């Protein structure tokens, strides 16, 4: 039997889905961890990015944050954070993933606000809008396409990276792949491939869904401008 047939057999066994540590449990772990990390990332990055963009300062900070996090391996953070005060379990994994969700969210929030047309900003000022009103009524609505794009990048990246939590036994769909490698290539080849297919499918599904929602929430007047 070639690995693809083995994977097909593995996926067709209902117990592989419903058992403890089966696909359904791992999938819900995966989604919970990812959602928490993205939510936390938004909570940290959006206010900071929007504020920096509104003030027109801190461009270098944004660039620095993205460059530094690019160089830190996810695996390293996943192994270091459980040994700090966070302890073993979900909080450490979520914190590690949040670190990688922040850069795209921060960068797009900052650029989104910065890229608002000067004329629109000046006009709003001329109409007597205060700083806060300018932010809420003019800058934020115009930055929505950027915020949505950043959210999509961050979410897809976090869902993909969450598979690595399996390296530290942190749950998620990656666990299925790691367990397959644990069985060895002959016995676990099908499970490895099946796990890979599930993970890839989830990532592409999230990407597709968010790409569509990004189109939907972009205000009509801004469509097709980017």
């Amino acid at each position, binding site marked *: 039997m070639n*690995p693809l047939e*083995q994977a097909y057999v593995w996926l067709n066994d209902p117990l592989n889905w419903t058992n403890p540590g089966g696909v359904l449990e791992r999938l819900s772990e995966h989604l919970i961890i990812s959602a928490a990390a993205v939510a936390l990332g938004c909570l940290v990055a959006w206010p900071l990015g929007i504020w920096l963009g509104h003030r027109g300062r801190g461009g270098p900070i944004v660039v620095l944050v993205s460059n530094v996090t*690019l*160089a*830190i*391996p*996810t*695996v*390293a953070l996943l*192994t*270091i954070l459980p*040994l700090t005060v966070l302890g073993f379990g979900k909080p450490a994994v979520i914190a590690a993933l949040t670190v990688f969700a922040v850069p795209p969210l921060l960068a797009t929030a900052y650029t989104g606000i910065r890229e608002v047309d000067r004329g629109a900003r000046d006009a709003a000022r001329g109409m007597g809008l205060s700083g806060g009103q300018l932010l809420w009524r003019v800058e934020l609505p115009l930055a929505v396409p950027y915020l949505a794009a950043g959210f999509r990048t961050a979410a*897809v990246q976090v*869902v*993909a*990276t969450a*598979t*690595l939590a*399996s*390296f*530290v036994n942190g749950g998620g769909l*990656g666990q299925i*792949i*790691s367990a*397959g*490698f644990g069985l060895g*290539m002959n016995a676990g*080849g*099908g499970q*490895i*491939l099946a*796990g*890979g*297919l599930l*993970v*890839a499918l989830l*990532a*592409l599904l999230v*990407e597709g869904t968010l790409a569509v929602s990004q189109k939907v929430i972009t205000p009509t007047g801004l469509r097709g401008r980017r």
Partner: protein
Amino acid sequence: MFLQAYDDPGNPWFSWRYVQDNTDTILAALREHLTLTAQAVLIAACVAIPLAVLAYWFRPLTGPILASSGVLYTIPSLALFAFIAPYVGTGTTTVLIGLVLYALLLIIRNSLAGLNQVPGAVRDAASGMGYGRFARLVRIELPLAVPGILTGLRLATVSTVALVTVGDLVGHGGLGTLLLAGFRNNFYKAQILTGTVLCVALALVLDLLWIGVGRLATPWLRRGR
């Protein structure tokens, strides 16, 4: 006795003694990491830059090339290794294929952006001087696209250095294998942190190296500015 007790405070985050006692292991991991990164980026560049040229020459191909490398990039690294391993086995080849596929998009996208930035007037002037399509590419367009290509190579290098660690899944993760071994071996903090620091340092050094290469390759950008 007292000295020894002080000398052994359990499980510190950093310990020179660990580094001294395990220099060979650390250097072997570093060497594997560096080799995998260099091979992956070089192979990826050899595939990606011609693809970027292809997309630049034939506009209708741009969409399919960017879309397919984008899909590859979206697939999580662990899944990519899971696809390759059952067929190729658990060796460095599996890691290398995964790393190359992952680096493609970054290089293609930035090289294409670099090529597209070549001013139309420059292209017309080259054609007017009698350059053929190929000569124009090699003598005019590629040199002018160097900053874009280099951005792609830098991004690919830094992200590859981070990604090599995932190769631990098939037993070849360079410094990743070192730090994960530390994690599994009673959470040996000194080993974990040494692996991490070396990983980040390697990314930084290679990035600076590319910046140096870029300065050498584009002397005209430094003059007259």
